[in-house]
């Protein structure tokens, strides 16, 4: 170890502060440039904003680099490094510490946001003289100003300590024992922050009054990028909690999870209902409102999780930013409502829905269900706060509530998802449904029988699994026809990619239903050589390994899972953290997971361990489903040949009969 001169540390922190200041100035300068150019109607001056945007992104990059250098060099004179990192933290987690705590995660937010603005500015550089593009950039820049403003003042990540400690406190150990922690927050932010881009274009469309379908086509790819990143980010978070938290679950309806889920729900509603607008020119008010809501929910979610108003496992990020975030949320809400109110009349759609039994009818049902879903999640999340405010009563709204309320909606969504692809636009004859839905329905029935043979029981789970089969059947049918007509290009584009994503959702549903409904568990007190059995899986406890890993005491139990090999769930006592942290070990297969966790640190000198064994069927299908959804979304981004115009959607021909 060497002693560093005090100068070097201060330089890094100064560099970071400087970078943030540059970022703030860049955002402010870009916004001012656009405001004056828009006010004076000098379209040629829009271009000048690009330089400001580059400046902002450069400043933010500088700040991020400064923070990373500080973290990697153990610069404990920086307060953020001192309170969130230690010398013994592995390099990967030192890098990831950037988003391990509040100030850093806001820095990441600003960084991702400036990345998005830069990408938008570059890809629209030829259309920058367009007022719509200028307004969109301005809107996004206003959001940038807010976040850089937080970093400049109340959430400054580059505070310094006059006396640098010899070692830092380190993150909550839960945040530094799995590589997923390095990816999950970044993906989540790519999604969360990404919705700022379509939000910017939605506001621009409202302000300029250009409410045709043009802006939708411009933002399509950006919306899909944000959506797929958020989807993957949420699933990675679920996977992380499954692999790390040791209770065998992946979703707890924790407020922070809900906060990421809310914009996903409205965003999902949007990417579906926007198809109706592209095709039929309808639902304009609705689609704009969904986008505005989605963005507002990202800010509201940040308020919920970053203000400390709600208890959660993610509490590491609580802070005093509450009023500012709430204020910004209110500002967005007022602006959005005012804009929609102002342009409301011009948003009236020219078309009408002819029959509920049509593709657009199915999209409407989808939207009704998704918004209801989002409403219930929001209500359940904030309800304890409301009750506490009204009569000072403490109560919890937990998983039983969400399960009870949301599972019927999930079932209905699966039904709509299966039926929609067999419906035609405008209206569908009963005979057409009878012909087209037969194969999917037969698939669903077959899957139900198979599920029963494999031991599934209970009306809800079996119905859900059957509907999942129905979804797979109707998606595969759609894809088969598209490929027969267009070759392999048939699996790309909105409908092809969408159908692939739906198959992913069905796989995810199978995994979710089976793992929550049919899991079995057992708790065993074992000495070396003892055996236990859960759901047909024999486990044998081999030995206990008790060792020191640096300052941490790690106890591993080697357990042989018959047919799967030896696994070693562990439990670690960190000196800087109160209770021991259990690290489960999972024997995964596509049939079921055998999830092993150590319950407590064994007593000194004793070789008796308590092991909890959980057998969960089809968990791996959830992650596989996520992969398929992501793949499908990427396929959906592939543009179809000859469909570059905003109004060329009629080129998408509908298959006729089967």
């Amino acid at each position, binding site marked *: 170890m060497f002693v560093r001169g005090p100068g070097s540390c201060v330089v890094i922190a100064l560099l970071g502060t400087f970078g943030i200041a540059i970022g703030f100035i860049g955002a402010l300068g870009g916004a001012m440039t656009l405001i004056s150019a828009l006010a004076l109607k000098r379209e040629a001056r829009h271009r000048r904003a690009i330089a400001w945007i580059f400046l902002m992104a450069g400043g933010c990059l500088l700040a991020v680099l400064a923070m990373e250098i500080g973290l990697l060099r153990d610069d404990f004179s920086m307060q953020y490094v001192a309170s969130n990192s230690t010398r013994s933290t592995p390099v990967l987690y030192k890098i990831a510490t950037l988003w391990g705590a509040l100030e850093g995660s806001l820095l990441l937010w600003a960084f991702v946001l400036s990345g998005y603005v830069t990408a938008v500015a570059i890809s629209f550089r030829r259309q920058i003289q367009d007022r719509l593009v200028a307004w969109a950039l301005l809107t996004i820049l206003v959001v940038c100003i807010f976040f850089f403003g937080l970093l400049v003042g109340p959430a400054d990540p580059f505070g310094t300590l006059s006396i640098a400690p010899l070692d830092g406190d380190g993150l909550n150990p839960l945040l530094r024992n799995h590589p997923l922690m390095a990816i999950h927050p970044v993906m989540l932010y790519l999604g969360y922050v990404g919705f700022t881009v379509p939000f910017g274009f939605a506001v621009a469309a409202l302000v300029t009054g250009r409410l045709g379908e043009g802006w939708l086509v411009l933002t399509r790819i950006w919306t899909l990028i944000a959506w797929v990143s958020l989807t993957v980010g949420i699933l990675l978070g679920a996977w992380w909690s499954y692999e790390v938290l040791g209770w065998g679950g992946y979703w707890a309806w924790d407020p922070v999870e809900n906060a990421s889920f809310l914009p996903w729900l409205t965003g999902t509603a949007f990417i579906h209902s926007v198809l109706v607008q592209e095709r039929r020119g309808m639902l304009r008010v609705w689609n704009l409102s969904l986008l505005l809501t989605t963005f507002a929910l990202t800010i509201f979610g940040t308020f919920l999780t970053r203000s400390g108003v709600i208890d959660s496992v993610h509490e590491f990020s609580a802070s005093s930013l509450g009023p500012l975030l709430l204020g910004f949320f209110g500002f967005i809400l007022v602006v959005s409502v005012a804009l929609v109110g102002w342009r409301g009349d011009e948003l009236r759609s020219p078309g009408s829905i002819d029959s509920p039994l049509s593709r657009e009818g199915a999209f409407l049902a989808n939207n009704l269900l998704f918004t209801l879903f989002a409403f219930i999640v929001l209500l359940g999340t904030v309800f304890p706060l409301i009750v506490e405010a009204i009569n000072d009563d403490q109560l919890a709204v937990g998983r039983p509530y969400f399960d009870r309320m949301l599972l019927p909606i999930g079932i209905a969504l699966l039904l709509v998802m299966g039926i929609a692809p067999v419906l035609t636009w405008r209206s569908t004859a009963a005979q057409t449904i009878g012909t087209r839905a*037969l194969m999917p329905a037969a698939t669903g029935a077959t899957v139900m029988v198979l599920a029963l043979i494999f031991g599934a029981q209970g009306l809800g789970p079996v119905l859900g699994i059957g509907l999942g089969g129905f979804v797979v059947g109707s998606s595969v049918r759609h894809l088969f026809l598209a490929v027969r007509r267009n070759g392999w290009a048939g699996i790309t584009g909105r409908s092809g990619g969408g159908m692939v994503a739906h198959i992913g959702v069905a796989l995810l549903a199978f995994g979710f239903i089976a793992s929550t409904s049919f899991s079995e568990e057992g708790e065993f007190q074992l000495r070396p050589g003892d055996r236990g059995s859960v759901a047909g899986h024999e486990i044998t406890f081999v030995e206990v390994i008790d060792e020191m890993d640096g300052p941490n005491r790690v106890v591993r139990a080697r357990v042989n899972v018959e047919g799967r090999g030896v696994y070693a769930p562990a439990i670690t006592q960190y000196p800087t953290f109160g209770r021991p942290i259990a690290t489960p070990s999972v024997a995964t297969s596509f049939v079921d997971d055998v999830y092993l966790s150590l319950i407590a640190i064994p007593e000194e000198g004793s070789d008796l361990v308590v092991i909890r064994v959980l057998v969960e069927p089809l968990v791996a299908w959830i992650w596989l489903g996520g992969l398929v959804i992501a793949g499908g979304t990427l396929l959906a981004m592939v543009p179809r040949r000859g469909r570059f115009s905003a109004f060329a959607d009629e080129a998408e021909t509908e298959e006729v009969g089967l």
Partner: protein
Amino acid sequence: MKVRHWVSWFCVVVVSSLALVAAMVADDPPATEAERAYEIKETMLCPVCDGQNVLESNAPVASAIRAQVDQLVSEGRSDAEIRAWMARQYGKDVNATPPRTGIASLVWVIPVFVAIASAALMISVFRKWRVGRGAEVSDDDLEIVASLREQS
């Protein structure tokens, strides 16, 4: 539709219904004490660990609650009694299920109300659209038709 289709649909409906009935019959309600205790623990939150239930948590207080639940179940107390007892001991927010009485019941009622209201709204919009579609022949349309007739 052809007869073949009707027969196929009939088979699909019969097989699905039988499968669902079989699924329902196979699902026996929780009866044993262990199952009851498991379900109570699963729906009771650990007071110190933010959102985890006592079944999943390895905090000391969670294992204490687990033991108390086992004890109370074996004494033959009803679910409601056990939940009330826990709420008195550890605060109302140990129950993950919000109560169905008082102001808390709103969390159950509001979504149902919103669901019904929005479905009703959608149906009424549908009907308006369909009614509006029937009476769209304007005077202009009639004139055009008339002029075309004259020309022919």
